[in-house]
């Protein structure tokens, strides 16, 4: 984030951002006083996996930097391990904030820095909507096709098949439509909530 930002303009334009995050996550990010404990203990951040550290994500939410934060890679590579949440002296569930930012980023279609994450989650959801359970072999094949052949899964698949631990055929449920039905119901409930 080397470019200069006009903070007062930002807060004027996105003043309600922190409120939307609160609604989705139940967490009040205003409480964060930037001690940095969340970042210090974050395993992903410590392996240089993030583009913005977790405490900076919190600061960006405070400042209404909506676009920037929703485009960050961090919100998608966060593993939701809740180490930060466990240690935050201000009792903020940072992992839930990250998850709420993901939901917003999906709504706005702003996952430019985390295409694999989006592909994975969508493929996973489609798989369980279709079969009711995860169909690993099918998931691995679909993902490999979508990611391109450079992807590592190719290496895992055959070894796991040889061990007999990766079932070749999709799971068979008496009623495979259970998850599909729930997804439809949740969409209905959320639509009604939105109209209120």
């Amino acid at each position: 984030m080397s470019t200069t930002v006009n903070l007062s303009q930002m807060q004027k334009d996105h003043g309600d951002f922190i409120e939307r995050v609160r609604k989705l996550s139940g967490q009040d990010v205003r409480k964060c006083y930037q001690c940095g404990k969340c970042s210090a203990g974050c395993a992903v951040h410590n392996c240089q996996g993030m583009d913005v550290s977790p405490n900076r994500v919190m600061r960006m939410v405070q400042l209404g930097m909506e676009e920037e934060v929703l485009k960050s890679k961090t919100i998608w590579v966060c593993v939701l391990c809740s180490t930060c949440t466990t240690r935050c002296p201000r009792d903020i569930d940072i992992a839930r904030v990250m998850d709420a930012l993901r939901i917003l980023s999906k709504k706005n279609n702003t996952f430019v820095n985390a295409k694999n994450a989006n592909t994975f989650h969508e493929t996973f959801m489609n798989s369980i909507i279709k079969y009711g359970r995860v169909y690993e072999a099918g998931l691995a094949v679909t993902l490999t096709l979508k990611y391109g052949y450079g992807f590592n899964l190719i290496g895992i698949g055959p070894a796991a098949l040889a061990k007999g631990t990766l079932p070749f055929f999709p799971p068979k449920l008496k009623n495979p439509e259970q998850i599909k039905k729930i997804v439809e119901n949740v969409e209905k409930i959320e639509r009604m909530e939105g109209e209120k």
Partner: protein
Amino acid sequence: MKYAYYPGCSLHGPAKGYDLSVKAVCKNLDIELWEVPDWTCCGASSAHSFGHLLGLAIPAQTLVPAEQEGLDIVAPCAACWQRLVWVNHEVTTNAKTRDEINQAIGAELTGSSKVLSIMEAVASAGMEKIAQATKKPLKGLKIAAYYGCYYVKPPKVAHVDDPESPKLIDDIMAAVGAEPVDWPYKTECCGASLGFVEFDTTLAMSAKVLDYAIKSGADMIVTACPLCQQNLDMQQSTINKKFGTNHKIPVTYFTQLMAYAFGMSDKEAAMHKNFTSYQSALAKLG
């Protein structure tokens, strides 16, 4: 003792050895498991990133038969377990969310079935009984009990044990004669869930866990999470290639070692389904 049992997708797939050993251990401890009929995926670790309610409603369905039977429920997968615990947390603390969940699944959940991790279920038999069931004590085997993140964080919701320094698996392992080592990475995340997203970061995170376990003098890493087990075990050779290390530490489910201590062979405990060779570690036992 009787519990409802929710194996979850991975125990019916790549973590078959876990499923087999959980069942064997419970049988030995007179714990009866009643598998939830026609169960569905818990949605981890994707559904909640599509919407909070969706992330709760999908796993909620699994709790319905357990409540109807009046049984507490055991989920041996850490990710499934945490999703179910979240459902109960919301159902018992947030009336609006409870109503929405119930509307989405067409049921009346009340949160009456406790969601137990497999460590708690096994420990409910009592350490004495576990020690009595042990026919081949694992004397001299040094184990690093690895809890991962899901079971202990965030502690307000997921609280099997202390979030920074848990010891339930250590205690169970000590009851079957093994020697738990003290080590600092018990609850650090191994990065398994990033495997499909940012594989290089997964490898870097796992490498640290392996490093510390070995430095602490462990012969074996013992876990209760299928994501951790598969990741640390299966990726070990890739990690060695990438970081120029030569790690060869077996990673087993704690129930596999228990089953072995209860008198089953390594094959019956499905240890041969794991990737990293475990023979030399078990050879120490004579």
